[in-house]
């Protein structure tokens, strides 16, 4: 199998180590669960090989991009908070892959992955993390506040839960204007106890709004495990309280399963204006943010979860189904690595915003004296 997935930072130094790692990998490989074969076949027919490979490439790009972002943070080029998405790539790609151009995406603060999956320019996303004027939000948003209206990408929210009512409003507008578009709204498991979640679901269901609420259940909100903050840990069941469809994707590291669930939910939104709550179980490999050593979980747990790596499994599926050879996939990986490095170069070279930008965009540029 092509070794595409493991973190680049963990590459072994010596030949002996490399050999040891290879062996370790081979024995581990046996334990890697396969992607859903039946769904894979179905999606291959529905989407075509090329689209599946595109989706794969985007997932690899997200991972490589995040690795570069992590490094840039350590070098002080990215400041503030930086929440990496490594491990959750199948969620972003599986869900956004099921969207159409006219649909909307609203995300929280861990949104680099969703932004790239939605097709935002990696250069512009990296430049935003660097605080540069060529960033998607002209350097004034930063890691937590990525916006690109051309791509109907609204998000980046630093306030937990703040995005949920707003996403509901985006869906409201889509219905109001008969757009037959749906709004995907991402949140973490830690967000579910918040009032904004419950208020929003109630309105969306009462008023038939085309919104898909996605709980990316990576089991922790900062250092707090799900069962310590939620009486009901099957979070998709909260849908019952609001008379809406609730769906669980238990294996959120399987991009096909995510795609399938969101495709159905998105159609329900577009065709029937009905909301759906989808809980997707996944895992984040890194700490909550760059400053979190994540000591609240064991090494064994992290390793166990990494065996279900969404990219490694996709890699294997592509090879076994002969869509690509190992070598071809290595090429894709090399291309993504280079793309991520190029983004860093671009961001490095870009300028900081001019001083005059400080007071721009507080209000629309509008004369105070209206005649």
């Amino acid at each position, binding site marked *: 199998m092509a070794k595409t997935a493991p973190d680049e930072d963990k590459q072994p130094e010596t030949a002996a180590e490399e050999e040891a790692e290879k062996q370790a990998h081979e024995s581990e490989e046996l334990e890697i669960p396969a992607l859903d074969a039946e769904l894979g076949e179905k999606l291959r027919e529905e989407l075509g090989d090329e689209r599946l490979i595109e989706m794969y490439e985007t997932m690899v790009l997200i991972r490589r991009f995040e690795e570069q972002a992590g490094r840039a943070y350590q070098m002080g080029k990215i400041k503030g908070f930086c929440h990496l998405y490594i491990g959750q790539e199948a969620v972003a790609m599986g869900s956004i892959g099921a969207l159409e151009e006219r649909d909307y995406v609203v995300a929280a603060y861990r949104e680099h992955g969703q932004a790239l999956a939605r097709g935002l320019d990696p250069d512009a996303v990296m430049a935003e993390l660097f605080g540069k004027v060529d960033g998607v939000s002209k350097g004034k948003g930063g890691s937590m506040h990525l916006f690109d209206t051309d791509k109907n990408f609204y998000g980046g929210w630093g306030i937990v839960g703040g995005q949920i009512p707003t996403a509901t409003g985006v869906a409201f507008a889509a219905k109001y204007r008969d757009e037959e578009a749906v709004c995907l709204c991402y949140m973490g498991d830690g967000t579910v106890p918040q009032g904004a979640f419950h208020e929003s679901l109630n309105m969306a269901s009462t008023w038939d709004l085309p919104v898909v609420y996605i709980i990316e259940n990576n089991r922790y909100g*900062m250092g707090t495990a799900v069962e310590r903050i939620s009486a009901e840990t099957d979070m998709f069941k909260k849908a019952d309280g609001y008379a809406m469809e609730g769906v669980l994707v238990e294996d959120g590291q399987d991009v096909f399963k995510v795609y399938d669930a969101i495709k159905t939910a998105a159609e329900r939104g577009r065709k029937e204006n009905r909301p759906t709550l989808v809980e997707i179980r996944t895992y984040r490999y890194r700490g909550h943010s760059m400053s979190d050593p994540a000591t609240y979980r064991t090494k064994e747990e992290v390793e166990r979860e990494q065996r279900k790596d969404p990219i490694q499994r996709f890699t294997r599926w592509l090879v076994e189904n002969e869509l690509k050879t190992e070598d071809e996939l290595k090429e894709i990986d090399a291309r993504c690595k280079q793309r991520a490095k190029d983004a860093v170069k671009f961001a490095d070279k870009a300028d900081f915003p001019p001083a005059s930008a400080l007071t721009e965009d507080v209000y629309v540029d509008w004369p105070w004296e209206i005649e």
Partner: protein
Amino acid sequence: MRTIAYREALNEAMVEEMERDEDVFLLGEEVAEYNGAYKVSQGMLDKFGPKRVIDTPIAELGFAGLGIGAAMVGLKPIVEMMTFNFAVLALDQVINTAAKMRYMSGGQLSCPVVVRGAGGAGGALGAQHSQSLEAQYAHVPGLKVMMPSTPYDAKGMLKTAIRDPDPVIFIEGEILYGLQGEVPEEEYTIPMGKGDIKREGADCTLIAWSRMVHVCKQAADKLADEGIDVEVVDLRSLRPFDKDLLRESIKKTNRAVIVEEGWPWVSVGGAVADWIARDLFDWLDAPVGRVHQRDVPMPYAFNLEDASLPGTEQVIEAVKKAAYVA
């Protein structure tokens, strides 16, 4: 005297008060098992157990309200807001319930709750995470608002806040948590509403609180090199604020400049300036000066963040203007 960090001083204040009074308990996000997002509650779970040091869901309105309810019937909760940016979600409970419980129950009830956590700007956290929102609280009758600038003050003031029979909003400086300072081993408290002179001077009074006290002290040192002798007054408590101390200082210097980290319009600085202009009009040799954040949301870009926050340069300029030497 021994030296400890601002965050340790706060920790000691809570620990001592919890040891002293069974009714005091701490709740908030990540305060227990994680030892606090800013490590202010380090070790407290081990000391007091999960009954008194409680991790909450990310539900600010809910857990602040829970604390307020517990306070109404006699407990003394310390509600930690990870930062005051998130405390905005709890404003309904704080303003509509805690602040007026004594008043609207005709004095039958009170809410001896402390809502505390990090406030202030900096560190390139962007518009939703980098704000000085003290004016929201200082505006509301029924609330007391404290903002310590040093480890010494932090400990003495927090102990007072916890013992206070009314709701106290206690805003810590996010950038100050690592600041070291002298803190005595023996027990002491700092009375509510008492300001402090952090540097004596004769030519102009700089009025500040929290992190801006340090900016003012730096500016004062530089101004001293130029022969301008500045007094730095730390308000420490924004509501009530120390009118006597301000009167004394301004009668001596005849000039005042207020330095705040927050926005200028309808702000604490604006209110203090208004009070000085009325109460001490005859003593002023110049209009009351003001230094503050630029009137914009905080930009993420590192260069713009600096350009938005008040620094020593602006303070020096304002003092010179007040002293007519600019």
